[in-house]
């Protein structure tokens, strides 16, 4: 499908996330405007390490099915490919299979016969250890050099693919590409790059469309269409009532990236320092001057998460102004009493468990950075316990239960009763995770860490 040269490529980005939902009319409008491909991201690290650590999707299956139905029926009629990146939120192998299973159901129900490719991006620690031993794994700030034990401690590790494995799947005839972890931009960049569009405008357009309508005047109204050509790209919202402005487009380059001028991809760096944003009309923006510097070394970024322990949460609330007037002293007493009671009853030393006491309504969100000092009107008290196993975490929370119900301030000579939010007061949260990898692997071949399988069903 990539034999004939083209002058431009139109990428339809329905939304920032598969499962977020959109008005199907916006997809039809994008097709009517001449979309050549539909690209959508299905994942992110943004919602925390749980989704990678446990290989669990953040989205619900019905929402993914609803969105896939919208895309697959429209793309099938138009004869254009659909590319989904970071399937199942974290892009683990089971996330790809989960989306593939939903796609199979939708295609069966709609009578569609589309050629599907699955691209797996999960990495095993043993394979990565060889790269580590060979000096091919390097840290990205703020992390330091990787240790083999860190790789082994991860429950799941993924590599973020560039556009190359997606292009390989398209060249193999895939009409639907379900990719594991991919850079947010590779999903939208793959098809235009395959069609020979220049790297600078393509990667820049891919960054601008990766969150769908976020770069428009009304991010809730649906996605955008980017038209990439030899000199730059234009971008317009799918909803005719919504606008892109030079500011709304340029501002999106700032979103969720530490550096607003540069963005590293596996094969090089997008540089938008000299990009010029101009209004074509009152809702379409033209961008020129984006550059791409090919790197000396091709690198794949790794993401990995491991279990930190098991958590149990308890939540009570305070409305009595007498306690609220002295809330910091109350919280200090609570922390001291929990440690004392846990030591007395469970025989645990301070370093055998951890807890965080959060005063919602007072300073829970900003903690030490909270600038306000006045007494709060009411406070929700969250006790979050982390211990090596669930039973211990819950035991600690239960030892704290009478304190969460009755602890007075140091100055009170009676026991108040506080407002538990639920019965039981304790909620077991299961395993808790943390991200531990922010490292890149030097790769000679852009596809070597990824596995492409044609068809809808996993072989195993």
């Amino acid at each position, binding site marked *: 499908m990539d034999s004939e040269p083209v002058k431009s490529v139109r990428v339809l980005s329905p939304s920032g996330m598969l499962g977020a939902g959109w008005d199907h009319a916006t997809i039809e409008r994008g097709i009517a405007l001449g979309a050549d491909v539909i690209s959508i991201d299905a994942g992110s*690290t*943004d*919602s*925390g*390490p*749980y989704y990678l650590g446990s290989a669990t999707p953040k989205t619900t299956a019905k929402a993914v099915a609803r969105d896939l139905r919208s895309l697959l029926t429209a793309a099938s009629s138009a004869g254009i490919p659909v590319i989904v990146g970071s399937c199942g939120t974290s892009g683990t192998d089971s996330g790809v299979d989960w989306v593939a299973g939903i796609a199979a159901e939708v295609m069966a129900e709609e009578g569609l016969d589309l050629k599907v490719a699955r691209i797996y991006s999960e990495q095993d620690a043993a394979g990565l250890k060889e790269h580590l031993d060979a000096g091919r794994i390097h840290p*990205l*700030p*703020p*992390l330091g050099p990787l240790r083999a034990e860190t790789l082994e401690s991860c429950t799941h590790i993924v590599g973020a693919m560039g556009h190359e494995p997606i292009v390989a799947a398209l060249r193999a005839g895939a009409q639907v590409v379900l990719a594991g972890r991919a850079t947010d931009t590779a999903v939208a960049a793959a098809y235009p790059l395959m069609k020979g569009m220049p790297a600078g405008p393509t990667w820049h357009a891919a960054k601008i469309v990766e969150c769908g309508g976020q770069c428009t005047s009304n991010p809730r109204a649906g996605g955008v269409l980017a038209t990439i050509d030899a000199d730059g790209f234009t971008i317009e919202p799918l909803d005719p009532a919504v606008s892109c402005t030079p*500011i709304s487009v*340029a*501002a999106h380059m*700032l*979103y*969720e*990236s*530490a*550096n*607003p*001028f540069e963005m590293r991809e596996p094969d090089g760096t997008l540089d938008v320092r000299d990009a010029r944003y101009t209004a074509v009309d009152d809702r379409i923006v033209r961008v020129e001057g984006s550059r791409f510097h090919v790197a000396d070394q091709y690198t794949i970024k790794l*993401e990995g998460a491991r279990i*930190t*322990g098991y*958590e149990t949460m308890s939540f009570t609330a305070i409305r009595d102004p007498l306690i609220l007037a002295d809330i910091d002293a109350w919280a200090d007493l609570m922390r001291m009493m929990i440690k004392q009671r846990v030591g007395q009853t469970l025989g645990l030393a301070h370093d055998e468990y*951890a*807890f*965080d006491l*959060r005063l919602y309504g007072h300073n*829970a*969100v*900003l*903690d*030490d*950075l909270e*600038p306000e000092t006045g007494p709060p009107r009411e406070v929700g008290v969250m006790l*979050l316990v*982390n211990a090596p196993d669930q039973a211990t975490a819950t035991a600690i929370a239960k030892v704290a239960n009478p304190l969460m119900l009755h602890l007075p301030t140091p100055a009170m000579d009676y026991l108040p009763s506080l407002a538990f939010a639920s019965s039981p007061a304790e909620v077991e949260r299961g395993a*808790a*995770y*943390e*991200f531990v990898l*922010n490292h890149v692997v030097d790769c000679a071949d852009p596809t070597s860490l990824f596995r492409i399988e044609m068809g809808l069903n996993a072989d195993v």
Partner: protein
Amino acid sequence: MSETTLADLAHEVRSKNAGPFWVTMELFLRDADGYRIAADESFLNERVIAELYRVEESTVQMFRIPSLNVVKISFPRPIGQGSLRDRDMHAGQHHVPLARMPIRQSAGRDR
């Protein structure tokens, strides 16, 4: 009497994760006058941000973008995303200390 803050000069002040290990913030100033105040290095600089957020000054990155009237600030997340002590999973509320900063009335004026 309430002081004029950076929030008063901006139409949006926001913060967000930039990956699991960084936080990034943007001040979208309303106009060039507001931008001049916020972009004045003698008023808002890496040292001031380091004190405000209790992070290492050498890790703070600042970007001043006059064409957008934007000042952008990034630094490593002091608390790991999703860890026991992370109270702001998306780092979406950490712009508040920045937004509340009182502006110096002389900042940004021609001197």
